Every structure is written in C-alpha cells, then in structure tokens.
C-alpha cells in the first residue's frame, strides 16, 4: 500500500492505539495535520504548545497509557521543552512529535528552524530525527516502546516537512508495520535477581524498625496492590513520597503519609530512626533525604528500581535489586512467605507504639478561625474540597505551597488520583495536566488545585477546555503572592519580600474564568466554602474556577530547611516552632 509520510505517521499512531493527541499546527507540521481529518484519533487544539505537553503528561499520569503531543518546528518545539523535562524528571511516558524544516533546509537557519534534537537531547529518554518517509512506522513504534518500557520517559520524534508532504517526492513510502523491535542497546531488566530478593526477605525478617519507602515507581509499575500485600504480610509501615501519594491508601493503618521537606513528623522521623529502609521505586531525592550525610543513619537499605543508575547514586544500598517493582515485590512476598510469612516477623510492638505516639503527638495542624475578620485558610479549602468531592476524584496541582498542602491534607485512597510536577517543579502544570487527566478519565471528577502564581502561567488552556467541552474544576488558592518564595523570604531572608507580591484582584480571576467560557466563583469567607464546592461539583457541562481568597501569611509546616538534617524538622507555630 502506497502512503505518504504524513498518512503513515497518523496510521502509525493509530496502530499504537492512540485515541487522543494534543497539539497545535504550524508550517513544518502542516502536512501531518491533513490526514488527522480522516483519522479516528481525537485531536485537542491547545492554545500554547506547553499546554499540549502537560496535557499529554496528565493523560499519561491518570491512565498509564502514553500521552501524545504534536507541535511544529522552531518555537513550537522550544515551547514544549519544559513538559519534556518535566516528564523526564517524573518518568512520564509521552511521545512528542515535532515538525522540522525540509531536509535540504536543515542547517541553513531556515524560517522556524531550530536544532530540536540538540535542544531536547538531555530532556528526553531518547529522540530521533527521521530522515526517510520509509522509516516513519519503525521510528514511531520504537518511540512508544522506549517511552513505555523500562523506566518510562519522554521520547521526541522530529519529522522534516519534505518526508510528510504529499507534494514532495521524498514523502512516498510503502506502508508496513514492524513486527519486532531492533534496539541492540536497549533491554531493560524487569525480573529481580532471586538471590538478592531472598537476601531482602532475610533482612526484613531481622528488622525491628523497618519502613517501606514507596516512590513513584510503584505507580509506574502498577504495583499498588502487591505493595499492600507486602505491607500487610509483614506489618511494615509505608511512607508515600510526593510522587507516590495514592500508591498506598492514606486510610490504611500502616500508612504514615508523605516524608520529605514538608512531610509529616512521623513519616520523616520514622525514616530517620529506622534500622531498615525498603526503597521501592523511589530515588532518594534531596527533598526526601534532606542532608544526605545525616539521612537515616542507622538504616540498612534495600533498594528496588528498574533504573540501575538509581542504585547507589545517592545512597549505597545493602541489597540492590534492579527490576520492575511489581515483579520484584511479587517475588519478595513469596520469599517472605518462604521464610515463615507473618508469623516469622520479629516482635515490633515497641516500634509500632513509637510510631503511634508520634502520630498522636505531632499531627498536621492549622487553625481555621470562624470569627468576623478571620481569614480563610488554604488548608481548610483543601480539606473541604476533599470531604465534599467523590472518593475517586483526581487531584492535579501546580507547584508551591498549594501543592504541599494538597499532598499533605488530601486523603488519597486510590492510585492514580494524584497528578503533580515533582522533580522539575513546573509552575503552571496544573490546568493543562488536569485537562489531559480529564480527557483520559472522562467519568471522573478532576480538581486542579492551583496557586494564583501558577494559574497565571497556563490559564489559557481553560479556553481549550471550554472549546473542547472538558469540564475540569480549578480551585485557585489565591493568597496574592508567590507563596512558597514568600515563605522562604520570611524564614530565611528576614522578611525582606522581594518580587513576590501578585495582588488578589489583578487579574480578576472570576471575570477571567468567565471570559474563557468557564463558570467563575469567588469565596472570601470560610462559611461559603462548602456551598461553592457543592455548586462546582454539580456543574458538568463546562469548566469551573473558584477563586478562594486565602490568608497570605499561612506557611507550609512541618519544614526541613534546605541542606539541613531531617532531625532538625521544624513543626510550625502550633507547636511553638518556626515563624508566626
């Protein structure tokens, strides 16, 4: 069958099972947009290419299937660099297709030419410039394979215009679909080493103060169920990192919640005092370890990760296991059973009592006042959202204070209900990622919890959401500041507030939302919070934005200051520590 390169590209995406893609056309990618008219693939037209990338990420986060974005050359490609880097840091499987100037124009500084492959080399798992129309099915097939296997990540495919333009002879190709993959340098290890797994089971059976340190790899490996089996079999408590919220239910008695810079006291301190850390798909990120030299000084380490480079990168493991988290944990459960299962676990009453007393003594705290003149607390807004939304609501956040409060206070009881930018910390992630999540999971309620600073970076994608009838909901915790920066300036720069004030009224978020085709609501008093949330949850034919006017002075606690030890955790003013 004779096809042109553009047809072959769209057909290849169909062969990969792509149902939806996010993009924005332009000169170099124009020929590929023509066959989209005849394809069953839904294309969502974004307002800025960054939005397309984050939507693809949100879609992948929520569904586990690779997200697809397509943009043009030059500025289209550079605008999607941030989502690529974000997906690289958080191991999100996305495939990005960029147009490129015609082959013969490459290297001549042609209109809208840039070195896309060079620019994106370090922010992709792999990228490739296709040089012949005949290679398109093979390269697309490889791109999806690389993006979704091993440690997932972003793959970019750069397509010169001449190989997809039906008016150019270079676009002629004979259709085929590759039945195998030939990548001699790419064979991810998925099965853990049996001897190491037995050794891990033995260490677990000797440990008096073990903690499971569950990371985002649990979710990537679809390992939430087997993680629960391991925890319940051994009776070991679980901390869930920022990337793993929802991987283990918050309502489970063994769940300790989030560790790290803004983790709760018990999660942070349990790791510090542990004699064994069972790191599953986590990477000892600096936001979790604090000062590495002082991190979990007495703990032996079992480290399971599909990426061998993570083992020993930050902390040398006693038992390194390269493999897929689900497969390895399944084997680990078997190995623990072989050693006698639950009955053979040592008596950990003392440790469990210690954890319980920490939880009772040091809960997360904030005070919502109800007197006239008391300001609305952002934490109260989040708890109210959680209490008044469906149990399986997908929560998407931007980056900053609102992200930390959401992660701390939302009760996540299902995997894939928490979508955020962890590694790169991309402000503006929430709105487009929520659109992508809702497209992937149309039956679920999707709440973006955003800051006013973040919202202003990518709010234009609400136009996309309105136009495409993607009814997401956005809660802006509007404290009129770049709140997290303000918090650091208050605590570490003697309250010298430099370039962090944004104004609560400029822009007028309610009017802005309405101008973008959304329902706009505003809440200034705690009494009105629940009614507004109920109203938002009842609307399902268009996006809703609530402008919550929040207390600017509120800070995220607990906090481990950057570069300090987790032992020096600051609990906050409710405990007589930290600022006012």
């Amino acid at each position: 069958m004779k096809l042109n390169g553009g047809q072959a590209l769209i057909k290849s995406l169909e062969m990969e099972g792509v149902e939806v893609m996010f993009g924005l056309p332009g000169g170099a990618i124009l020929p590929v947009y023509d066959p989209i008219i005849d394809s069953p693939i839904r294309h969502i037209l974004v307002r800025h290419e960054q939005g397309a990338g984050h939507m693809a990420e949100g879609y992948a986060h929520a569904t586990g299937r690779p997200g697809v974005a397509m943009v043009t050359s030059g500025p289209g490609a550079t605008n999607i660099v941030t989502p690529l880097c974000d997906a690289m840091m958080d191991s999100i499987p996305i495939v990005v297709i960029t147009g490129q100037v015609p082959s013969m124009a490459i290297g001549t500084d042609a209109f809208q030419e840039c070195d896309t492959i060079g620019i994106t080399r370090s922010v992709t798992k792999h990228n490739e410039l296709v040089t012949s129309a005949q290679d398109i099915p093979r390269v697309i097939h490889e791109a999806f394979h690389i993006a979704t296997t091993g440690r997932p990540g972003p793959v970019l495919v750069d397509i010169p215009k001449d190989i997809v333009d039906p008016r150019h002879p270079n676009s002629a190709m004979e259709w085929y679909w590759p039945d195998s993959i030939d990548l001699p340098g790419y064979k991810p290890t998925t099965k853990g080493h049996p001897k190491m797994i037995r050794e891990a089971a033995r260490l677990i059976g000797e440990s008096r103060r073990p903690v499971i340190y569950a990371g985002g790899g649990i979710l990537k490996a679809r390992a939430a169920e087997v993680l629960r089996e391991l925890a319940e079999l051994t009776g070991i408590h679980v901390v869930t990192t920022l990337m793993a919220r929802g991987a283990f239910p918050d309502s489970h008695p063994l769940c300790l919640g989030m560790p790290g810079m803004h983790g709760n006291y018990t999660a942070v301190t349990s790791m510090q005092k542990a004699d064994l850390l069972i790191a599953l798909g986590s990477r000892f990120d600096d936001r979790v370890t604090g000062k590495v030299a002082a991190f979990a000084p007495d703990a032996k380490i079992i480290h399971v990760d599909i990426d061998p480079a993570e083992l020993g990168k930050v902390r040398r493991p006693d038992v390194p296991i390269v493999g897929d988290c689900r497969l390895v944990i399944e084997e680990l459960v078997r190995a623990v059973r072989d050693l006698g299962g639950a009955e053979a676990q040592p008596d950990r009453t003392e440790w469990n009592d210690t954890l319980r007393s920490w939880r009772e003594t040091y809960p997360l705290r904030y005070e919502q006042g109800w007197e006239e003149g008391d300001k609305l607390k952002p934490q109260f807004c989040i708890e109210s959202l959680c209490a008044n939304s469906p149990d399986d609501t997908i929560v998407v956040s931007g980056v900053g204070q609102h992200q930390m409060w959401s992660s701390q206070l939302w009760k996540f009881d299902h995997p894939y209900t928490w979508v955020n930018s962890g590694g790169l910390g991309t402000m503006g992630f929430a709105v487009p990622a929520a659109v992508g999540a809702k497209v992937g999971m149309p039956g679920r309620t999707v709440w973006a919890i955003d800051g006013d600073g973040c919202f202003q970076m990518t709010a234009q994608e609400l136009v996309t959401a309105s136009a495409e009838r993607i009814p997401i909901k956005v809660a802006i915790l509007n404290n009129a500041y770049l709140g997290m920066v303000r918090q650091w300036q208050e605590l570490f720069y003697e309250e010298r507030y430099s370039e962090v004030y944004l104004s609560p009224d400029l822009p007028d978020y309610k009017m802005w939302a309405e101008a973008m085709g959304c329902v706009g609501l505003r809440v200034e008093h705690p009494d009105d919070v629940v009614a507004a949330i109920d109203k938002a949850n009842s609307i399902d034919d268009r996006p809703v934005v609530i402008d919550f006017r929040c207390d600017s002075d509120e800070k995220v606690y607990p906090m481990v200051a950057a570069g300090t030890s987790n032992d020096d955790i600051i609990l906050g003013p409710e405990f007589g520590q930290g600022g006012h």
Partner: protein
Amino acid sequence: MAASTSKHHILTVLVENKAGVLARVSGLFARRGFNIYSLAVAPTDDPRFSRITIVVDVESTPLEQITKQLFKLINVVKISELDPADAVERELMMVTVKAEGAGRGQVIELVQVFEGRIIDVGTDAITVVLAGPPSKLDDFEDLMRGFGITQLQRTGRVALPRLERQPHPTRLRRAG
C-alpha cells in the same frame, strides 16, 4: 600532566553507528559533571557499530555511576571497562619543536632515543611524530618543552585488553 595514574580509567564503549551518538555521549558527560580526560572514536569491523574509547577521571565521579548513566543511552550497546594495568594503550602525538643551532642535534638525538620520526623539517624547527604508551609521550613532551614547543597534538588513547594475563575486560552486566 600525568596521564597514566590510577585516577583514570578506560571505557571502551560500543555504540550504534548513528548520527549524533557522539553528541549524546559527550553531552551526558557534560550534563552530569563527569570529566573526560581523552576521547577517541573509530568505526569497528562491523559497520553497524563504532567504538568510543574514553579515558575518564574517576576521582570526580565513581566509575559505576558513569557507566550506568552511559548504559541508559539507547544507542550504547556495550561498555567494557579496562583497568590501565590490564590493558595495552597507545596514543599518537605530533609535535613541532624549535630546533636551532646546537639544540637541533639534541632534539634529533632524543627523537631517536624515543623511536620517533621526523616528518617535517624547517629552517629553525622540526615536526616529530611519536606513537607509544601515553606515559612515554608525556616524558617526551616534558623533554621537548625545554627546547620550545610551538605546536602539539595528541590523539587521545586507544586501548585493548592485555593478552598474556588473559583478562576478559570486565564486561559490565547489562543491568538496564
């Protein structure tokens, strides 16, 4: 410049012979702050693959992290690590040295001692080519400095495992 000390390790990296692979490898070193001491690329007997010989500074970063990160590049097929003690290494140097008056005879004498060859002769300088173990090149370079080096180029080393000790290069198990 002591090139052959234990702070350095040799990696021979088999890569797919595709456009941009060298940029991927050198870009990875730059991004992660790994130091390259020298680097040489050449095709292998199989046209699908090329071999990159990299001498790395293992004082700045553990060798293990360097090889693991390299393995993550899709186009990297195999990495062999050669301890300098278990490898034969050669490097080529071309150097132009001032050679006037009495010095001219001394330079020519040293070239003969080091088994180099004079490949170009000018009125007041000569150009010498010398191949050998990097340490020998270091010594020659030091000696020539006294006469005045006007230009110098070295290729970076290539290496193969030493035969008489039967060392299989520590073939790193492909873990990823």
